[in-house]
């Protein structure tokens, strides 16, 4: 057998393999899209961590934001919430008490951090509640940021997200649900570039969960588009959650 004959045989074998190798293009596109989204977002979060760490003191929605006055229409045109402070806390000691605020309270009714199927994420359900006796118009991020604390140190965070804004009118006493997705990877072990697969998974157990939601409360006297208004934050914690 000559090398030419071997080449021909290899070509025949390669041709026979083409029909046998099944590549699911659509499924692959979905996987790539998800990975690019996570990777890009986490890269942004890592970049944001170089910014000054803001102290985690309590702060509230400004009390004079017009909640006693007639509401105006919400303009959900904002594209992005401000950089998350929680994302900057990876690996840092964190023992703050962040009591639920007023008039907008962010709470975590569930005590379980549910693992997502086929993804290294855990999800916690949160509720944003209007505790005042007036309706509130607001624009918020579409998801809640969260951190997990173990032994007083932040060990896992919500990776950065590219999310649109969401406008709503929250009647007095009513609540709106949000989800906090947290990467179940020890954020201290993720290598530069933000690829979650480079980090070590965090194990089952009890963690302290802190949650944070970026939003804009609309003042009727100043019905500027959301894009020009200042974002503020409601947050709470610690909430004791169990990761199975």
């Amino acid at each position: 057998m000559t090398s030419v004959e071997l080449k021909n045989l290899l070509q025949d074998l390669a041709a026979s393999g083409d029909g046998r190798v099944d590549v699911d293009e659509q499924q692959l596109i979905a996987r790539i899209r998800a990975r690019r989204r996570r990777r890009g977002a986490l890269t942004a979060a890592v970049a944001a961590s170089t910014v000054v760490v803001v102290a985690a003191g309590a702060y509230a929605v400004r009390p004079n934001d017009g909640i006693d006055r007639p509401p105006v229409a919400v303009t959900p045109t904002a594209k992005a919430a401000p950089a998350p402070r929680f994302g900057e806390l990876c690996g840092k000691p964190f023992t703050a008490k962040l009591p639920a605020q007023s008039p907008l309270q962010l709470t975590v009714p569930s005590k379980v951090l549910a693992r997502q199927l086929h993804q290294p994420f855990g999800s916690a359900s949160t509720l944003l509640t209007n505790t005042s006796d007036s309706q509130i118009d607001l624009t918020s991020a579409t998801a809640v940021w969260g951190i997990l604390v173990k032994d007083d140190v932040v060990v896992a965070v919500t990776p950065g997200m590219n999310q649109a804004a969401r406008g709503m009118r929250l009647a007095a006493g009513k609540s709106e649900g949000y989800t906090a997705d947290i990467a179940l990877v020890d954020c201290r072990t993720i290598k530069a570039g933000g690829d979650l697969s480079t980090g070590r998974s965090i194990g089952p157990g009890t963690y302290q969960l802190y949650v944070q939601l970026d939003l804009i409360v609309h003042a009727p006297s100043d019905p500027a588009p959301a894009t020009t208004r200042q974002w503020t934050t409601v947050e709470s914690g610690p909430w004791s959650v169990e990761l199975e």
Partner: protein
Amino acid sequence: MADWEAAFKELLAVRGSALRSYAYLLTGESAAAADLVQDALLRVFTRLRVRGDVEQLEGYVRRAMLNQYVDGRRRASLWRAKRHLLVDPPAHHDEDHAVADEVRQALAVLSPKQRACVVLRYYEDLPVLEIAEQLGCAEGTVKRHLADARTKLAAQLGTTEESIR
């Protein structure tokens, strides 16, 4: 549609068949070949910036496939995870398929690096120097792999080693 997605679809439309064939030659198993192609595409297109034309992208994907294939640990773990799913390939009775099976079985006795060298040398027509660059080893190492592979293939295919230089 994002730029990467358009590039991805164009690559699969234009060169998908060649990539699948290449993977099949390297692995010899349809399931493992599918994994190899998909993992390589995933790796290349997950990068935030996908630039280049189809030819360049194909080069990246082929390189990723080669790296993954010769990575013994990955190969071993894939095999452990999936060997229970594999069945014996069907026996072929026509002459062409019988020969293809014979070649496939002959390639199966080679080590991953020997096999990669054979595929790159005799199927891709790459010179030894370029094979060495792709595998990240010395030219002498490639020559040794090729010599060892030729000896094994000659024994398997019932021919002489000298005839396939």
